[in-house]
């Protein structure tokens, strides 16, 4: 009893902090590696965001990058005004949003349907072969997937165009035409991610109460009714949480993926914020535009942060689940 009271006392008040420090202080050692890496590769770049409010640093003329950044003149919000008056940035922003939206609207529902389908399907062989084949793409790198699909969609020799030609259709340059580029991005996303995302929903369905479905069956519910009124409502919380979190990552339209498929032909429909900031630094005509690139990145990060935190807040408030 006394001990419990003591613990209660320790939990509150200033003295208890010192006590806790004494008790657990040496555990701080365990933080060291992770904290060092976080500061070095996450927090120091965040400090570099001050570049967004300065002139482009003159790196060649100064002794070090830090000196160059510190020496650059403050320009306030000029960089932001500059980027938002640029057609290219607006185009990249629009593409980012469009591609993300397409991915959510088209790709997001498929794993749900697929999970229900696999769960209800009879025939072990076909179920197993579907499961085996659908997880593979997730474990490939975007570089490999890019190579596979660029060849598959090639205008002259690709399988898809061969089929189109066989049916008397014109050949289409899928990866080099502004009309089709976004659908390539969406369908490759589907190819890579569908199988993987299905796992979550399958687990959610397995966790459902089997008795409810049996009861519905006995009441004479048809297959569609069972799915519509029992299974779907059962996994609805999981779906809602996944959807909210997915919307939180809206600002990330998939840098690696778009980078792999990118070519100057499709700039109008495929240039996203990620590839744009990359080109500002790496492929700018004269000098790397660090300040502008940082400003775009800063905008992107802030919006992404708001979306993720907001999404998590909503999903915690209404569904009691979140990423933290």
């Amino acid at each position, binding site marked *: 009893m006394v001990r419990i009271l003591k613990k209660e006392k320790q939990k509150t008040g200033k003295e208890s902090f010192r006590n806790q420090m004494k008790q657990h202080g040496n555990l701080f050692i365990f933080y060291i590696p992770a904290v060092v890496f976080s500061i070095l590769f996450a927090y120091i770049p965040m400090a570099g965001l001050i570049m967004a409010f300065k002139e482009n640093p003159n790196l060649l003329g100064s002794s070090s990058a830090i000196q160059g950044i510190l020496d650059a003149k403050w320009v306030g919000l000029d960089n932001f005004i500059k980027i938002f008056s640029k057609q290219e940035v607006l185009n990249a922003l629009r593409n980012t949003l469009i591609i993300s939206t397409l991915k959510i609207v088209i790709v997001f529902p498929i794993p749900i349907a697929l999970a229900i*389908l696999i769960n209800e399907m009879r025939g072990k062989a076909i179920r197993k072969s579907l499961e085996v084949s659908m997880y593979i793409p997730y474990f490939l790198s975007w570089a490999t997937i890019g190579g596979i699909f660029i*060849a598959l969609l090639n205008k002259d020799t690709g399988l898809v165009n061969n089929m189109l030609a066989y049916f008397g259709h014109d050949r289409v340059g899928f990866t080099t035409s502004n009309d089709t580029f976004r659908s390539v991005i969406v369908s490759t996303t589907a*190819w890579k991610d569908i199988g993987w995302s299905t796992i979550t929903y399958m687990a959610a369905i397995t966790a459902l109460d089997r008795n409810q479905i049996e009861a519905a069956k006995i009441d004479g519910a048809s297959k569609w009714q069972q799915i519509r009124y029992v299974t779907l409502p059962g996994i609805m919380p999981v779906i809602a949480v996944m959807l909210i979190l997915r919307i939180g990552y809206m600002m990330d339209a998939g840098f690696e993926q778009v980078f792999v498929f990118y070519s100057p032909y499709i700039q109008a429909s495929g240039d996203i914020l990620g590839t744009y900031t990359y080109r500002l630094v790496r492929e700018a005509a004269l000098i790397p535009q660090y300040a502008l690139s940082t400003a775009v990145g800063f905008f992107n990060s802030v919006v992404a942060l708001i979306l993720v935190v907001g999404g998590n807040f909503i999903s915690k408030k209404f569904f009691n689940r979140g990423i933290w």
Partner: protein
Amino acid sequence: MIKNKVKAKLTKEERIKNHIRRAMFLCLMISLGILFAQFIDKRFSDSVKRGMDIAFVILWAAMTIEGVIRILRISKKSGFREYLKFDKAEFLYLIGSAVIVPASLFVPSFLGFRFICILKLPNVLRRYNDENVFQIIAKGIAVLLILFFIVPFLNVFANALSAPGQVINVVPKNIDLFAIKYVLADKAFLRSFGNSIFITLVGTLISVVSMAMAAYPLSKPHMPLRKTMMMFFMIVMLFSGGIAPNILLMNSLGLMDTIWALILPSVVMVYYLMLLKGFYESIPAELEESAKLDGANNFSILFKIIIPIASPMIATVSFFTAISYWNNINNSILYVTNNKSIYPVPMYIKNFLGQNPMEVAMNNPTLLTYWDGIKMSYILMSIVPIAIAYPFIFKYLKNDVSAGAVKG
């Protein structure tokens, strides 16, 4: 799942009826497919269009005849009104399509109206046992999906193994191993495998050890400054400095163009850190208390008690960390400018695919004819390690990850 193995014996008439139903279902599906193809894209050549039209009309005629026969039979049995009560959709469809389909042969703009045959769908479906319809549709979709996932791989395989200068889809023709041999003899490619293995092993080791350590104090409820440290790591996950500051940082650390630039930036993966923390929290505190009484210090508690208990979760985290290191091209895109000797496999492939064939084949013109095959052989070789590991991955996925995925 319980299987319905008991089959009632069917009379000959019923069996015929079943066949007709199946045939109707097939007709309907094919004609909808044709319509869909015609509708989403009007760039087919004229002869193909004509062929599609004819096929559609034949299918339509078959369905119509079956429908009319049914009307006659049912109205003879129980009156026309009874039929109309249950099959309004089909009747509507019959009347409507009798006008629209012949008209659409001559008036192209009527094409869209042919979608009226969707009205037939609920009717045909209702005539089946519910479960059977679902199974038919489910299996059809499953087969299509399997093709969707597998055909790209078959295409890579076929292209890598075939002699150049022919149309190759999914089956290799005139097997020619030149391209594969060329790729296997490419020393730089083999070195990129070495790089990838090094990056994956060292990266996973550093990453998992530092995360397994940091998760321990985070999981202690009475740890001082716990909230602050959580915040510290959450910010790492939620906010980033963007591309430019990271590149400048790598420059000033002197890590640019070194293999460490491909390992160190992604050491702390906060999501997995939180998974580990959650798992540690579920370990009963009594275990530690008793170890403490025995005089164990923090290090031996963590490494001898906590980590062995948490080994399933640590294995899962290591697995995903390793996968993300193996597949990462982000770091090599950003932090490698001209030192190609440190490229990991994915970046090597990305770089090779972007090359101009004319330059590579300068002193070896045969390469030019084999160019497509060589590209595909590189891709094939990059898939091989994953393919070898896949049976284990799959088994592992089925057992552990699917169970752990929901909890996290």
